[in-house]
């Protein structure tokens, strides 16, 4: 996994913008209508989800190898 995805669920309204613009299909909407990571290994840390999230609910950081 090259990235670290942080979700602030309390802010998420489940609009699906991050899911639609993810080029690697990393994200999905769960039964509660909130975003969740479905395939973390596929994430390339491009940040498209974070860029357009209207609710500032998802954050992607490149993982720093220690």
């Amino acid at each position, binding site marked *: 996994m090259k990235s*670290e995805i*942080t979700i602030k669920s*309390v*802010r998420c*309204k*489940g*609009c*699906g*913008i991050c*899911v*639609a*613009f993810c080029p690697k299909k990393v994200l999905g909407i769960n039964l509660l209508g909130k975003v969740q990571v479905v395939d973390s290994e596929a994430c390339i840390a491009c940040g498209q989800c974070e*860029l*357009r*999230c*209207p*609710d*500032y*609910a998802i*954050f992607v*950081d490149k993982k720093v190898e220690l």
Partner: protein
Amino acid sequence: MLERSYEKYFRQNRLPHLWCPGCGNGTAMKSIVQAIETKNLDQDKTIIVSGIGCSSRASGYMNFDTLHTAHGRAIPFATGIKLANPELNVVVITGDGDCTAIGGNHFIHGARRNVDLTVIMFNNHIYGMTGGQASPMTPLHKKATTAPYGTVDRPFDACHLAEAAGATYVARSTAFHVKHLSDMIAAGFDNKGFSFIEAVVQCPTAFGRKNKMGDAPDMMKWMRDTAVMKAAWDKLPEDKREGKFPIGLFYQADFLEYTTAYQEVIDVAGGAK
């Protein structure tokens, strides 16, 4: 995770905001604070003024001195602030209805005077908060609750309007082009004079649903596919412009700024002693 640096510009106890799921206003608001951060504007010397409507709720979430004013009257309040203390950076957040209908006169006269304000108009093409009535910027033949067969009124092009009225910086971007929008706003801060930036945002709840434009991601794809950068737009033949709109910097001019002009009057007249 490292907390994002723009979070300090939001009132954390007011988030999450009340905008609908998928509303573009949140993205546009983030673009504004990122532009403020880029230009290093002092948080204590930046004032956010807004009118009434969905867009104008933004002032409540932003951690500056803010003023949520009467419908359409954000620009007059902002003019007063700027004249009282020309050192301040005054930012106006308004919507398409607030700016071009209720505040239409204030808008053109603010531009005519060339007051040093940065006006950011969130254009969602409709009155969202009151239930989806047609605004002066609802595109021709698009549906609204007050136009069930499609509106027959020709819409304003707010950028043309601002330019014609005397604004010295006019630009447009969209909630899809987040970085571009932020850059357009940041360049507006640099202009000493009336700067107008139209931010096209998606309204999936009122405008999108009425016009069968799909959900929020579909509306963002619509912006991606129909917005054309200014340079490409200029080369686009007339017949291919149908259904598309240009984005980018449209107009920039140098003209004496209002508070400077007024200071000259104060100097001549002696001012209050």
